[in-house]
């Protein structure tokens, strides 16, 4: 257990001066890696990238989960679900490499831009799809069969049953899936790094085309710039790590609370 304390403690110990400094003097709008360590644009862009990717993954993943759980034959389900779960583990560096050569050109051709938030959305959505499908499928299948039988006994079609009976029951499970996907997307590094730019000072805009930056890529692109490992940059990086860690911690706590509420129900 000491290990966990060691890691978390070290990050907190190294990162807290920067965070305190941010809270006292404002988070700043400009990052040059030497004396200005403004992270507001990056934090904004982190949320924007995370939210967009999760929306895409949800829009495709949850209907897929419904199809697998409610409409498909068990043969199809037994084929698709394990393969999706296995594919979930495609290393992110490979996904990033693929994304650079296949998603970025397509985005570039159709929307302009190329390296940027839009490419990151797509690659992150593909990466978190298996997550969303697998967890929400479990949640949908956990709805007792008697509910479905009762609904269909009243003359409802399968779709009406799925929409009016199963979905409200499985709602909290699906929400858990979405939050977990968000946590994994926020923590994703390599694939985003390879397709998003990075640009340390992204404009605060809703246009998803220009190169941007998220907290993880900010860390990744700056590790090793500070050779001595003791300077201001290092401190700022640990500050960024601490913020990211807290964000994901909050998400995980929310997930745990949701699960507990569902169990007690």
């Amino acid at each position, binding site marked *: *257990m000491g290990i966990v304390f060691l890691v978390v403690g070290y990050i907190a110990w190294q990162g807290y001066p920067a965070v305190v400094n941010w809270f006292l003097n404002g988070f700043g709008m400009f990052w040059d890696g030497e004396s200005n360590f403004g992270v507001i644009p990056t934090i904004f862009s982190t949320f924007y990238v995370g939210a967009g990717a999760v929306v895409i993954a949800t829009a495709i993943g949850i209907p897929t989960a419904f199809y697998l759980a409610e409409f498909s034959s068990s043969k199809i389900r037994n084929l698709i679900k394990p393969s999706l779960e296995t594919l979930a583990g*495609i290393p992110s*560096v*490979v996904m990033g*490499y693929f994304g650079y050569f296949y998603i970025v050109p397509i985005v570039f*051709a159709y929307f302009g831009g190329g390296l940027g938030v839009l490419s990151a959305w797509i690659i992150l959505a*593909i990466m978190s799809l298996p997550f969303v499908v697998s967890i929400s499928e479990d949640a949908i299948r956990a709805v007792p069969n008697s509910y479905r039988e009762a609904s269909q006994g009243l003359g409802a*079609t399968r779709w009406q049953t799925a929409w009016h009976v199963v979905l409200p029951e499985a709602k909290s499970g699906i929400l858990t899936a979405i939050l977990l996907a968000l946590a994994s997307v926020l923590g994703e590094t*390599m694939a985003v790094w390879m397709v998003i730019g990075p640009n340390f000072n992204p404009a605060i805009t809703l246009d998803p085309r220009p190169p941007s930056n998220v907290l993880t890529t900010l860390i990744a692109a700056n590790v090793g710039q500070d050779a001595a490992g003791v300077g201001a940059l290092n401190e700022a990086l640990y500050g960024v790590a601490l913020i990211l860690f807290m964000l994901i911690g909050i998400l995980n706590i929310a997930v745990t609370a949701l699960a507990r509420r569902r169990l007690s129900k």
Partner: protein
Amino acid sequence: MNSYLKSLRTYLKTHEREKIFAGLLICICGGLSASYGILLAVSVVTSGISGSSFLGALPFTDIVADLLLSLLCFATAVPLFLAGYLLAESHYGGIVIAGIFGIGSFITSIFGITIPALGLTISVLCLIGTLLGLWGQRKTIRTKTRAPVIEENVMKLCLRLCGLIAVGCLFFVIAVIFIRGMYSVSWDFVTKPWPVSWSDATAIIEGVKSGIIGIGPQIAGSLLLCGLCELISIPLGLGSAIYLSEYAPQNLLTKVIRFFIETLAGIPSVILGLFGFTFFAHEFGWAQRSLLGGAICLAFMILPWNIRIAEESIKRVSADFKAAAYALGSTKLQTIRHVILAAAAPGILTGILLGFGAAFGEAAVVLFAAGNEGALWPSQLTLTSSDIPTLPGWIYGAFRHLTQSQDVTQGGWREQNVAFAGSLVLIFIFLAVTVAALLVRNHFNKKLAGT
């Protein structure tokens, strides 16, 4: 011929005219899209030049991107034909798909999409078809109500489409990596050393072709790193799992411990990389990237999974086994060693293998804490001072060199293929480990169920 005419006439009689017309319009859109795809593919394949010179106004300079676009045209043609048919059959799905395509192609042609003329034509035709379909549908609803069944079928279709997209995306990724990587993979490629730099393109291509260079050290380095990481995490994980499930009382301390394990699971890998990069160098004076430091950080990463899976499989051991062991007079330690661990072994082994797979594919930790550009064989490495070669690090290095100061659509095709081959090897090892884990689990589950 006559019978065809007859069936056509009955079809026209049983279906409303505006719907058939709408369906025809949408099918024409599909035809346009498909024929554009064919033209593009033919022009690229026969002349070997990109479609930009053939049809004009294309920002592509890459033949592959052109082929992809023609594939995309075919892919859009299929749902368009489907929508046309559905419209004629008075399904809502047809209207929805046609509407989406109408709006979508309008937006994309405004966005400065490639072929404004084609895009605008398709969007106008689609929107007219949608409106006609809607009008026809209103008439239908007034006359007869078949809504629930139609709704059922349409929604089922939409759900199935989503499923196809989801599975299709992932299989597309795998297919691309496999197709582009497989030419370079050979026995030499996975065993020979890598003495060249990525900036020397001809050396790489020739070397791989004649089997002189390969990624042997990288594979060996990755395996060694993950093996060391398992050596660190297995005792820790197993010990914690046994303690948590067998010894620990249900009190505040256990809860805190569990909470911290969850927290550790939530640390993004790049933070562990940052930690490994500075902590060991700063506090112990090791190199910034080292074998032991990387292995320790990777062990932190997979530890929570190991603990969780091991704990679960220990808990699943039936209480009868334990009771029988105690009844035979064994002590608690003996019970744990000879009964519980034996019965929980397959689950624990599955967890270890899954952890190994996760560690093997992890790049962010490895890149910062273990090494990226080294080229030494494992026998030449030292524990705390050398930058060790790893497969994810190699792929990332390839990526950086191949994309440096180059336009998005350019870059050497064959060098890219070599890096795809590395990715293929990485995925292959990862999948092999994962499948082995699943097989172990299934095998023992069956055995347990059988006895």
